[in-house]
């Protein structure tokens, strides 16, 4: 393609449900791929926790909000010839469409690359899509596109219920759903119309229970077409594919069915004239067992019928999965195609011998299981449907389905839950059992439990719509469980158990042993995993991909790497509290190892990420991140039996997942690079850490652990309310609450003790003060602090949900000095080698009094803020820390102790939530983290940076309209100036009764919403739902009993997709931006802010 020298790539923005790390993977691959072609890449993304926004990936990086206005300014400045819209998920695609529709692309002569605009519209706009598919003679379910609820009703009357509702142009199916009644239909269509960019909703025939099959297809400009992979959803139609357990390749399709859908896929990609990749979803007639209940009209039909359900004309979560499942780098190849290359001109980097124009052959089975956030939001609606709810996913590769499934379950890291787990509530005292077999996040375990109770696999298939093939495989697992329970373990039985994917821990549970004993037996009987290569070609060609998975077979293909090397433990699936930031860190650590002359070996289970790209490290093991799997890998890499020559592991970058392995590695004499297991334990064991701080003379909030309610009440009385309570056995803010009085404390303790009476509950004095945090790197002699981050929200809001500002302009010199002193002393005294993150609270007395600084916690590892602080200070924290761990001191790297020089810029990190997707979950900010992603605003002034962060996070209010206030009594006085501020800016004020009274008393006009939920109409939820207000400020009254009005206010604003501020600090920050009128911000490449 002549003349293509500069291309703009749009990223996908913050991680939200439906749009996770897969787009960092795709974007990073594509940028590298385009640069190889000599094309200058300009990248825009608002998400700092991405590899794609780092130096070395794109040529010019903008970390700016993804809005039409911002991107137009970038285009004006950079004048790219092409725009690649297909790599930034739905966000990127929607933005590209807007840029085209508003004439901006034409104005600056920017060509849309890869997929033509008309194609995007055809694939995305239901009516056009339907027309196109019918034109090429492919089947599509009967449907109608509606703009009103009335039209939807009419359709329902003609073809009957149930129906499925899908809004156009949304993320991860937002706002859609399956409706069984007219009332459900009306509500869902209304919601869908509100969330659709084009105010269109598709209502179509419901294919519940049909098989759901996906194909990943590629096409080049010369019309060469290939399929990369097909995938079979174990959950039948009705569950969003992002929420389905998926297997690749398909297992229950004959060649005739496989080719029928493959041929249809090629026909569709040709008709759409896509240049690049696309994902096509099909519904296929279920087998007879399932059809009996779900599709009786298909029972006697001839052959298999199929329908085309959906086409995504871009890289997607599925294409990332297909890339990892096959080894075929879809995004990389798609980018080359967009740049004008043909498939037969692009080398297959996996074999190095063949070209990209071939279809991968798998000789293993891949299983993906979504990672849902219900371990955090147990109260949320756990039912799965057309609205995706998972935050991330895991993938496992094995030679048989059973082992793959069990490995994937191990990879989920839901506690230590294996397939043996059953919920106590499934059977009551009388032995009545009630397994949750409807589509929900626990269905897999429920099915296992049902099979254990001798329920017939075919009957379960009929009930759930899951193909009997999968249930028979699961019953194979149950059968072996029973043998392990009843027979003495011998080499033959152990071999079979390992072949079916039983972990040592499961085997030990069933055989009444300790997991280490099973490991010893495996050693004695020489039952060890081998590692096989993912080579795209089922061993037909000699390949050199360093991409491996474990299995129990004969031949090992992964001979231990020679030379200096280290294993980087990744962070597993994306979940709330452990997101893409840790993948960012893992990738940088692998790169730093290489830079220092070490071979890097990556272990991870997450298919969405850059870390599991096969060329990120020298070797990739796609494996669960538990002790057994990591120790097996280390043994495989330990070529010599000399302990001194054991391969070391890097644990600091894989979040809590990696840190949790420290003890087990240490017990097995496995060396840990950087801070060792003892240091980690000292920082993480509450009692030891308390002693440590006392010894250092560093204050921390007083508190203690209790095991009974009366003890708890006693302790809280002594400390004085409010107190922060949390269980001692979970980390990452799970189950943490602030209780204001004895009543709340008692309720909390009753619930917590019911769940677990063995572990103490920790009660700390809660200081409501200014929260700050630092990341630091220590080499044992020096401690470097790149910057201090100040939170906008006071303590009590989880640091991951707070807006963080660099530099911390609100601190006095003394305060900053104290923070630095505490940090340096802590780092040195703990003996930290590598990274640590410390959180502090600053309590300010009355004027003149010195403030007190308390240390809240120390994490001896990389934190969530590492990508942010690295980007805004220009200090590459992970690279420095990795080198420190290898023995290269900070001084040798050119750094010294203390606070690094402040940059003349302001960086603001703001959280992004996915609450509209999680029905039933309360959205208020609390010590429990709830956000799924983050954005960064960077500029020369605080107001401009904050404005950009708020815009990018979707928290910015329109410049006029009405705001609703519902403020708890305890916050009323504090809220007043904020309300006044908005009032003075010209916003209309709505308020609930008590709040309205206060506002009136202060001479402001206010519209009081007098009706509570149960007091007639219009009540407060209806006011929000009607769109009368553009934002809500609501503080929590305490007690937090669901069904309170506050909960409904918050949910209603979430459903309505308007900002709802539950912290006055956030509302104050928004007010500040609005009142300073700093809508005028810069749009510049990151490097220019940094002054390089």
């Amino acid at each position, binding site marked *: 393609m002549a003349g293509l020298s500069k291309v703009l790539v749009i990223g996908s923005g913050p991680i939200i449900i439906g749009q996770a790390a897969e787009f960092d993977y795709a974007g990073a691959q594509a940028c590298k791929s385009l640069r190889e072609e000599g094309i200058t890449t300009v990248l825009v993304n608002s998400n700092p926790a991405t590899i794609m926004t780092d130096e070395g990936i794109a040529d010019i990086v903008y970390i700016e909000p993804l809005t039409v206005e911002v991107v137009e300014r970038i285009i004006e400045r950079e004048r790219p010839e092409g725009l690649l819209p297909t790599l930034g998920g739905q966000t990127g695609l929607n933005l590209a469409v807007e840029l085209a529709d508003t004439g901006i692309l034409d104005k600056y002569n920017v060509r849309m690359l890869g997929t033509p605009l008309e194609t995007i519209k055809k694939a995305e706009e239901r009516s056009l899509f339907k027309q196109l598919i019918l034109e090429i003679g492919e089947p599509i379910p009967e449907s109608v596109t509606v703009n009103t609820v009335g039209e939807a009703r009419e359709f329902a009357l003609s073809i009957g219920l149930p129906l499925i509702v899908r809004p156009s142009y949304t993320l991860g199916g937002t706002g859609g759903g399956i409706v069984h009644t007219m009332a459900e239909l009306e509500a869902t269509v209304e919601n869908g119309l509100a969330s659709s960019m084009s105010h269109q909703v598709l209502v179509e025939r419901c294919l519940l229970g049909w098989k759901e099959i996906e194909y990943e297809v590629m096409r080049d400009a*010369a*019309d*060469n*077409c*290939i399929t990369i992979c097909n995938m079979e959803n174990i959950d039948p139609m009705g569950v969003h594919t992002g929420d389905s357990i998926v297997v690749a*390749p*398909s*297992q*229950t*399709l*004959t*060649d*005739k069915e*496989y*080719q029928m859908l*493959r*041929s249809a896929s*090629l026909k569709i990609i040709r008709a759409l004239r896509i240049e690049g990749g696309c994902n096509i979803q099909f519904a296929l*007639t*279920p*087998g*007879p*067992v399932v*059809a009996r209940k779900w599709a009786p009209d298909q029972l006697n039909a001839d*052959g*298999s019928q199929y329908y085309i359900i959906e086409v995504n004309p871009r890289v997607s979560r599925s294409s990332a999965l297909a890339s990892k499942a096959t080894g075929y780098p879809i995004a990389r190849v798609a980018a080359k195609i967009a740049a004008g290359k043909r*498939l*037969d001109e692009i080398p297959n980097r996996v074999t190095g*011998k*063949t*070209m990209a*124009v*071939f*279809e*991968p*052959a*798998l*000789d*293993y*089975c891949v299983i993906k299981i979504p990672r849902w956030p219900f371990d955090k939001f147990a109260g949320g609606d756990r039912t799965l449907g057309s609205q995706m709810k998972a935050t991330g996913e895991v993938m496992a590769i094995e*030679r*048989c*389905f059973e082992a793959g499934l069990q490995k994937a379950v191990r990879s989920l890291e839901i506690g230590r839950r294996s397939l043996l787990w059953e919920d106590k509530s499934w059977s009551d005292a009388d032995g009545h059992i009630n397994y949750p077999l409807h589509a929900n996040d626990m269905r897999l375990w429920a099915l296992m439990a049902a099979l254990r109770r001798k329920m017939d696999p075919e009957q379960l298939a009929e009930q759930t719509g899951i*193909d*009997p*093939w999968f249930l*028979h495989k699961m019953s194979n697992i149950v059968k072996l469980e029973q043998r392990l329970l009843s027979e003495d373990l011998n080499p033959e039985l152990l071999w079979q158990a390992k072949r079916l994917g039983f972990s040592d821990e499961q085997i030990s549970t069933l055989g009444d042993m300790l997991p280490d004993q099973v490991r010893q037996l495996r050693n004695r009987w020489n039952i060890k995993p081998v590692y*096989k290569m993912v080579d795209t*070609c*089922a*061993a*037909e*060609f*000699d390949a050199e991909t360093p991409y491996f998975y474990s299995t129990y*077979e*004969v*031949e090992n*293909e992964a001979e231990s790497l020679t030379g200096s090397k280290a294993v980087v433990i990744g962070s597993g699936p994306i979940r709330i509290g452990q997101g893409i930031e840790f993948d960012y860190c893992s990738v940088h650590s692998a790169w730093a190892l290489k830079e220092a002359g070490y071979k890097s070996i990556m272990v991870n289970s997450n298919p969405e990420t850059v870390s599991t790209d096969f060329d990120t490290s020298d070797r990739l093991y796609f494996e669960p991140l538990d002790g057994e799997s990591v120790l097996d890998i280390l043994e495989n890499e330990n070529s010599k039996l000399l302990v001194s020559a054991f391969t070391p592991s890097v644990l600091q970058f894989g979040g809590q997942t990696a840190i949790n392995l420290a003890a087990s590695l240490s017990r097995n004499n496995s060396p840990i690079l950087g801070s060792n297991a003892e240091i980690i334990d000292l920082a993480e064991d509450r009692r030891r850490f308390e002693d440590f701080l006392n010894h250092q003379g560093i204050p921390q909030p007083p508190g203690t652990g209790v095991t009974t309610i009366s003890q708890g009440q006693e302790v809280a009385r002594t400390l004085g309310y409010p107190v922060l309570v949390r269980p001692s056995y979970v980390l990452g803010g799970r189950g943490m609450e602030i209780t204001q009085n004895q009543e709340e404390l008692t309720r909390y303790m009753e619930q917590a003790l019911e769940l677990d009476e063995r572990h103490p509950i920790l009660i700390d004095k809660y200081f409501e003060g200014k929260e700050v945090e630092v990341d630091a790197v220590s080499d044992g002699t020096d401690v470097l602090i790149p910057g201090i981050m100040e939170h906008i929200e006071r303590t009590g809001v989880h640091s991951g949900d707070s807006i963080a500002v660099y530099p911390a302009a609100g601190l006095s010199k003394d305060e900053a000095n104290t923070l630095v002193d505490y940090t340096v002393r802590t780092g040195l005294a703990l003996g930290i080698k590598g990274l640590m993150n410390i959180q502090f609270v600053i309590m300010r007395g009355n004027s003149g009094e010195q403030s007190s600084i308390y240390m809240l916690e120390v994490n001896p590892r990389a934190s969530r803020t590492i990508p942010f602080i690295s980007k805004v200070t220009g200090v590459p924290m992970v690279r420095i820390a990795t080198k420190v761990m290898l023995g290269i001191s900070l001084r040798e790297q050119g750094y010294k102790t203390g606070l690094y020089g402040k940059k003349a810029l302001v960086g603001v990190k703001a959280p992004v939530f996915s609450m509209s997707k999680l029905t039933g979950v309360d959205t208020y900010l609390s010590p429990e983290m709830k956000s799924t992603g983050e954005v960064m605003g960077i500029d020369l002034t605080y107001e401009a940076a904050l404005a950009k962060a708020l815009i990018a996070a979707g928290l910015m209010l329109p410049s006029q309209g009405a705001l609703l206030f519902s403020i708890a009594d305890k916050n009323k006085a504090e809220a007043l100036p904020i309300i006044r501020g908005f009032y003075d800016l010209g916003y209309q004020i709505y308020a609930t009764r008590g709040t309205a009274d206060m506002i009136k008393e202060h001479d402001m006009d206010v519209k009081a919403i007098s009706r509570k939920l149960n007091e007639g109409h219009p009540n407060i939820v209806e006011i929000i739902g009607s769109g009368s207000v553009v934002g809500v400020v609501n503080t929590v009254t305490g007690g937090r009993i669901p069904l309170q009005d506050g909960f409904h206010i918050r949910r209603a604003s979430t459903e309505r997709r308007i900002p709802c501020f539950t912290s006055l600090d956030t509302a104050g920050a928004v007010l500040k931006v609005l009142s300073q009128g700093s809508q005028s911000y810069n749009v510049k490449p990151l490097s220019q802010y940094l002054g390089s």
Partner: protein
Amino acid sequence: MSGKAILALVDGTVYRGEAFGAETTAFGEIIFITSMTGYQEMLTDPSFAGQIVVPTYPLIGNYGINPDDVESAKIQVRGFVLREYCPVPSNRRSEGTLEDYLKEANIPGLSGIDTRSLTRHIRSKGVMMGILTSDLTSGEALHELKQLPDYGDTDFVREVSIANAFEWEGGQKRQTYRYNMVIVDMGLRFNIARILSRLGCRVTVVPCTFSSQEILAMQPDGVVLSPGPGNPALLDYAIENIKGLLGKKPVLGICLGHQLIGRAFGADTFKLKFGHRGANHPVCDLATGKVHITSQNHGYAIDADTLKGGLQVSHINLNDGTIEGLRHSSMPIISIQYHAEGSPGPQDNTYIFDRFLQMVSEVKG
């Protein structure tokens, strides 16, 4: 399915697993195939005569056996070697299990072995003879192997070809046919007949021993030389007949048929180290520059350096550059090394049949 069985290779390598299917002994050339679906089509593909087939995809038997997905009247493979056999299949068309299917045909299977290791072994050492047995010890099996004829020295075409000519009745009966087509059965895959029939041809299948005079006497509009098993260098009788057709009638050669056209014009064939067997081979059509994904099953290929007699390369394999198709500079002859009929495998190449029929129509005028 319970007993033990072994697979012993002529180089002394032995794989141990569980017997399934018939508990008997079979020998043959060990080959691997990378198609992930289509085991029933593989089993019934006459090109696998004399071979023990190893699918590289580990889970086989998942969707059972049905009456329709057959490429010939019986199982043609000598043995079937798997990582895992699925005893409880699931598919709306399934009417039985793979195990029963093999048992009925007295074909042995072996499951539970590291097929990837076996594939890598064949890839690096080349295809070789082996014995699949649940009766013999490994020592006995290896001894037996030494006595057996080599795959490359056996004419399997006579074994798989039909005895008497017949008219294909798979398609719908028509009043009038576009063309009269004769297929020379050297190991016909039914899907070729199905496709020609679907395209409006009256299809007659004749044995490989039919002479060119007999074929010409049927007054066909075109002749298709079918795929088939084994070494094309052993088939001089067939080549003689083919020579009698070339230039007289439009001819389409597929796989073995393609190799024999080459030999008929004096080209040499050679044995590939481990063959092309799978459903993912990229082939470039030199006439259009387009690349198509093809289904392949062959162990021999035409030596490009020996092409003569007006034959020109029309298609090449993008993996290893070998010849995938030929056309003649003046005569109405085209041939392809791969399987345009797929089954198992992609349906992307049926354009070859259209191209052939176009040629037939031009000749017919």
